[in-house]
């Protein structure tokens, strides 16, 4: 590991987006795993939700890899995913159902999608 040294590099936005998507997929994977004990306790639908979360985590990891390869289609899919996440989180933020509004929740569910949207919005020339 040596000092950062770049020459005529393309933008590092895809790499930054890769790291953030990796973090997001890990958090979703953990959410999927966390549903399983409840499924074992008899909550049958939680099996489905847990598996769906794990599949989403896997899909997000694959998107992250394709973004690293600078695939424009992956960038578009990731944008859609993050916009959907952000809209859902903003709705939960506004609706008075007692959803968590702590700093960690805001970072994970609001700041992370916003950062990803900002990173993936441009430069489009970084993607093919």
């Amino acid at each position, binding site marked *: 590991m040596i000092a950062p040294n770049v020459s005529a590099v393309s933008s590092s936005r895809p*790499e930054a987006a890769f790291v953030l998507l990796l973090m997001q997929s890990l958090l979703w994977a953990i959410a999927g795993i966390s549903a399983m004990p409840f499924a074992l306790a008899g909550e049958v639908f939680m099996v489905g939700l847990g598996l769906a979360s794990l599949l989403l985590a896997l899909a997000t990891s694959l998107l992250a890899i394709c973004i690293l390869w600078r695939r424009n289609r992956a960038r578009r899919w990731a944008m859609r995913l993050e916009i959907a996440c952000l809209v859902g989180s903003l709705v939960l933020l506004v609706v008075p159902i007692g959803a968590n509004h702590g700093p960690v929740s805001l970072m994970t569910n609001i700041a992370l999608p916003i950062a990803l949207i900002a990173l993936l919005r441009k430069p489009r020339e970084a993607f093919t």
Partner: protein
Amino acid sequence: MFDIAPDHAIGLYAGLLALPLALIAIRLRPARHSVPGTVLAASVLLAMSGATHLALISTHVTEPLTSWLFLANGTGYIALSFAFTWRWWRLASASLLIATLIGYVVWIAIGLDSPDQVALATKLLELTALGLVLVPVRGEHVTHRSWRWVSLGVAVPLLTLVATSTIWIVDLARPDAQHSHAGAVLQATNDVATPQQVAAAAQLYSVTKAAILPYEDWHKALAAGYKPGQDLGGSSHWMNQHNVDAGYVMDPNHPQGLVYANSKHGPVLLGAMFQMKRIGQFGPDPGGPLTAWHQHENICVTPIGFEFSLMTPFATCPLGAIDISASPMLHVWIVDNPKGGPFAVDIDSDVVKSIDRA
């Protein structure tokens, strides 16, 4: 885990304040053009984490070891956030981040601290910073590229998993005084019940028991508008939507819910449940610590089959579930509940099993 410890709040403010300052500091440095954006982003996160650690010294002066560790961490992070052109920056940053994350996990595992929102937010920043430090950038002249990928692919997922599991286990195993069990926050009360409070609790118990005894015949409960809910560990809450909407406050004649054991002989009445209308609005507490209400927070509920799980420490729910809190409630158990008494948050599972066997 989902609260901000009063002595940690200053760390949150310092971390937020460090964000614009770090961005300005980077813009003022011409050297920023010689490094990838991932390095600059990691520098900002290191500065935020460093500021958080340094600010926490002021509220931990009575704990010398903790203060020294905060000082070492804070100065290390701040120094590294400025030194992003240093030859060994990645190695030093990754080492400090990994050591800090492992140190925190050990620290809470041995009971020297309890996880809270400031700590979790800082760990999330550090995990992200670690990823940004390690990720190789296309076009960057770098040796050991494969080592960087291996480190990124192993360290970040492993540390995320270990940190999350440890934080969760510690939080469930050692809940603080206001958290009687997972996801339930108790109403603040005096520590020891006064004789008047003991008498008031006994009065509430006897009046409630007399009022709900007719519902031992579950057909009457059904006729009165109580509808059976999902089986949770052998028992079900039967909610009366009319009583919920009417907003009766701890009215023994109109409890919002009844709790039945789902025995093989049919539903057996365990007790009543009073519930307030609004989240965060605890009800009257005549028995002090004996009749403290509780509020379920950070539950992941799915409308599909109305099932639930708990929100993870890093605030995620399974896909299709949403995070909610339930308004405060108070149970009155009319059967013997040896582990928690007549107003406990939960009914003893052994009681439910013995009813089923009877």
